[in-house]
């Protein structure tokens, strides 16, 4: 009788305490509500791509510096892409850029075409943009790439 009462009250106490602790779950987020900025897929305006802070900064730099030659439409009118040779890859061109490592793209942007043995029409940006800014532009390319770059296969990831 005594032991029973003892056990009963102990069990009750633990049950109450355990009930207080809610189950922890891995929380799921809506990717667009939790994006710093977004960009529509260049090939499919309906598909909205979430961008994190770094990618969003890359987007801004891209639309200031690179859009003229690395896109077919610019905010200010016609693209300059047809005036340069060879035609630069579109910045969302996953088929071309996915196979190149972050380190290569960053180096190419910083040093320009000539230093990399390619067309001098790609200027060197190493004295205009900081390494962080260049990394951001590359991160932006990765975010908007079509076909998409699989995170696990991302080359040269730091």
């Amino acid at each position, binding site marked *: 009788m*005594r032991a029973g009462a*003892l056990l009963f009250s*102990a069990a009750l*106490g*633990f049950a109450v*305490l*355990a009930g*207080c*602790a*809610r189950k*922890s779950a*891995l*929380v*799921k*987020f809506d990717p*667009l*509500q*939790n*994006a*710093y*900025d977004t960009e529509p897929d260049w090939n499919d305006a309906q598909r909205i791509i979430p961008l*994190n*802070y*770094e*990618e*969003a*900064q890359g987007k*801004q730099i891209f639309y*200031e*510096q690179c859009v*003229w*030659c690395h896109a077919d439409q*610019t*905010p*200010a*009118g*016609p693209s*300059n892409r047809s*005036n*340069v040779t060879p035609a630069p890859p579109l910045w969302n061109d996953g088929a071309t850029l996915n196979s190149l490592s972050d380190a290569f793209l960053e180096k190419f942007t910083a040093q320009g075409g*000539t230093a990399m043995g390619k*067309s*001098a*029409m790609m*200027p*060197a*940006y*190493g*004295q*205009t943009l900081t390494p*962080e800014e260049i990394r951001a532009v590359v991160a932006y390319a990765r975010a908007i790439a079509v076909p998409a770059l699989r*995170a*696990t296969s*991302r080359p040269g990831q*730091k």
Partner: protein
Amino acid sequence: MNPQNVRGLIGWVRRVFFGDPARRFAWVSLLLTLSLAVAPTKDFFRQSRQYQRQYSKVIERRPDARALRGRMVSGIHQIWLPDLGILDRCTTCHLGIAEPTLADASVPQPFRAHPPIPHDAEKWGCVVCHRGQGPATEVAEAHETTVAWEQPILPVHFIQASCGTCHLDDLPQAPQLDQGRQLLARFDCTGCHKIAGIDRPAMLGPDLTDIGTKVSREWLYKWLKEPRTIADANGNVTVDGIDFGEPRMPTFRLSDSELQDLSAYLSTRNAHPIRPYHFDPRIVASLSKRQDVADQGEARFRQMFCSTCHSLAVTRAGETSLIGGDIGPELTKIGSKVNPDWLAAWLRNPQEYLPHSQMPRYEWSDADLYEVTRYMETKLTDPDLLADVPKLGSPTKTEIEAGQRLFVDKGCASCHVTEGLSPQEDFGPDLSAIGSRNISQLDFGPAKVQPTLIAYLKSKISNPLSVNPSGRMPQYHLDQASLDAVTTALLSLTGPPSTRGMEKLIVARQNPEFHPAGEFGKLYERYKCYACHKFNGFGGTLAPDLSYEGSRATRQWLLQFMENPQTLRPTLVLRMPQFNMPERDAAVFADYFETAMQSPAVDATLDRKQFTPTMAAAGKQLYEKKYQCQACHTIGSAGGYVGPSLGNAGNWLTPGWIEAWLRNPQALVPGTIEPRQAFTADEIQALTAYLLTLKQSGPANGAAAAPSARGTK
């Protein structure tokens, strides 16, 4: 249960628990032990501990498990910012926040690394930006609204609001916040609300003291009913607005009789009657005979580049779009709007009617003025514009008096001036701390929205009646992106800094003003140069910054350009207007630029003669082969569109400017998109020599002051 049994039970409890001192002692100590166990047990089941155990499992599967395990600290983590009054335990669960190898999407939350940001997350913690309850160690308490804590986590979509609580100045890294702040200013929210950081400008809506001399009572009725005269199938293109797709004047929900009264009141505002302009009768006689006088006017309208500031709706293949700038109002139906005498008087001197107007005062010949006004009166019209307005007749005294009362009651007086009326004080609520408002302080009214501040703000702005059916706030028509931007800007308004530590962090807003005196100052006001150009940090962004124009352009070129502004840039829609500036005005500008608008980085003594043809030949090689500048610049017709044409660089630019520019373009024009190259001193000399040889004959060729292709910077 009968009393006998109850008594028996109590007796039993007495005997078993307190029968003798030993029993008493045993039971009390057991109870004590149990109550002491409550805290550790609770701690054992704490969510944060569960997350810490989960984290250990997650990192076990990673290739760098050892290193991650080594850096993992169990127990409660804490960042304390006493200056800000912030205690932050978020990293107790968000364990991988500073682990760069946990950045990819395969890492489950809450363990993923934070994307790189300019502030050190380990130093500042999370709640500074994300809000929520820092000391909590339970998900719901930390993230959501609770009874004791009403500030939930800010969704990342609105996170730029947090940037705005300290950074009161423009912040290019936070475009949504910047856009929202611009919209708050553009839509004149400060007309009715107090908003810290946004100054009330001298003029919000136009001064209506003499509106009766400008438009008819019918037009006023139509405008007040719905201030949009053009809309495409989606209702996107509107009266005034290109980027924003929205007129600055909101829609007031006015009844028919209110419209009658207000239009009566406003159409009788004509204290200063228009003095009709008397054209030279010979010019009128010769021009009015011509069939094509309106076409001539249209050609002049184009040549003068009115479209740099004013847009016209153009319908092509069923789609209407506005072509032109948005500094001034859209003009598609101006001929059906304004009185012809008013139009001629306005064009001759806009500031006589509206002292604060940004419209420059052009120099007109009678022929030009006649042709352009005929064009606007006959071609920019819409015969159906006022078709749905009832017959109004002449205003009665009762209508006018009622209209005057409405003008104050409805809040018109908060943005518009009329003679003798002053606005109601504090017409709308103070919004300076709206972003930290608790939910219990909000009145959701009949709105069926989630009980959050964000949902409240969005509902209120997109439809003010949704939360308050009898409210006075007018209706704006914002698209989703603008609505989110305005919401972000409002969320950033958290009131005055709560602590001294916070005060130290505030990055103040800079509002430079530049209004020089003297002859130049008068012309600067007359031509409203600062509507488009920047001078020492003050002015518009449409056209190039002229702070160093005296170092950049040669005097000869400046004089020619102002007389006949042109650009060779093929892609530019917006150009410097043709002011028909007299030579003496151009000379005043050139003088002032030469003396006052100089860059210390430019060597003004550099002489053209020291650049030899040999240098120029070497420069040509560098330009065409090594650096291939033609990727972005044209000479003649070949080349790229990104930078200005250089075909006339030798006439346009000074040697000192070219040299300094090649050394470091950003030092001369911060933020210019010209990439800085690693030229050697010899290369700079050679390129300068080459550019100085590039000359075109003819008036002010050369593109020169053309804005960069994106029209700013």
